[in-house]
């Protein structure tokens, strides 16, 4: 199935909130082999002026990929997840993510480009807190490989 070119410009509004928990920060930090104490120890995080445990720089991918899943699982998108390869990723942090945050993400499909039998799709997740303040902007480009790619 071909990628639907009409996806470009589509916006998926913010859905259910993601609650950032201390144990999730610790688990994710271990999973990326992080050792900084501000991910694990409350006193260490507070000594740096943070309200709670600080998330690693790529933690927002959890929230971003949940938002991306809404596009990938959209039957109108034509995306076969097993043929998805991650091509580019960026995180811009407007403020640190800390335990206790409730985050929501609005997903923008910024670009859809046909490439061979597949497509390169660039999405942007605007992640904000419960108060509506901007927390992070993430952009992802995924390559959906066509047959033989």
């Amino acid at each position, binding site marked *: 199935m071909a990628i639907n070119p009409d996806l470009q410009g589509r916006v998926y509004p913010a859905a259910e909130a993601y609650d950032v928990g201390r144990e*999730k920060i610790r*688990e*994710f930090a*271990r*999973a*990326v*082999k*992080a*050792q*900084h*104490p*501000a*991910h*694990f*120890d409350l*006193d*260490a995080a507070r*000594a*740096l002026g*943070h309200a709670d445990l*600080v*998330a*690693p*720089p*790529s933690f927002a*991918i*959890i929230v971003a*990929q*949940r938002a991306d899943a809404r596009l990938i699982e959209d039957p109108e998108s034509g995306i076969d*997840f*097993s*043929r*998805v*390869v*991650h*091509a*580019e*990723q*960026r*995180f*811009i*942090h407007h403020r*640190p993510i800390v335990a206790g945050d409730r985050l929501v993400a609005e997903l923008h499909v910024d670009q859809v480009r046909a490439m061979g039998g597949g497509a390169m799709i660039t999405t942007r997740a605007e992640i904000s807190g419960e108060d509506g303040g901007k927390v992070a902007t993430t952009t992802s480009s995924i390559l959906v*490989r066509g047959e*033989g*790619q």
Partner: protein
Amino acid sequence: MSAVSVSRPRFETLEKGAEIGRREISVTRSDLVTYAGASGDFNPIHWNNDFAVSVELPGVIAHGMFTMGAAVQLVVDWAGDPAAVIDYQTRFTKPVPVADTTGTDAPGAVVEIVGTVGALDAEARTARIDLAVTCAGQRVLTKAQAVVKLP
């Protein structure tokens, strides 16, 4: 876990082109399963060899986001505060194939990371750290850049 590094780099001491450090990261299939669980990315190309081969990959490959997330730890530890990394981006150029070494002490892959000061912005007091990230001599990430806000 209580001693926080207080020796944070100062902007004035930095020079473009200077190396901030280097490290090697060993990766096993177990690490990929751990990352899948922690991140919620359960694409089977990262844990099932037959499946990976069936979609024309060389075998199980690491999540690009595992490599990206692990590579920046060099910068986090140098900066002294994870929140100092205000912008981080990369392109995923080559996959990192991870051999099945289950039951042995051998790594399934080794990723090498070297960080250098790529650019300095005196007004914003930020340093762009460029990461050279290789596996078996091949660059796996390109344009891997972390912007660090310094005191």
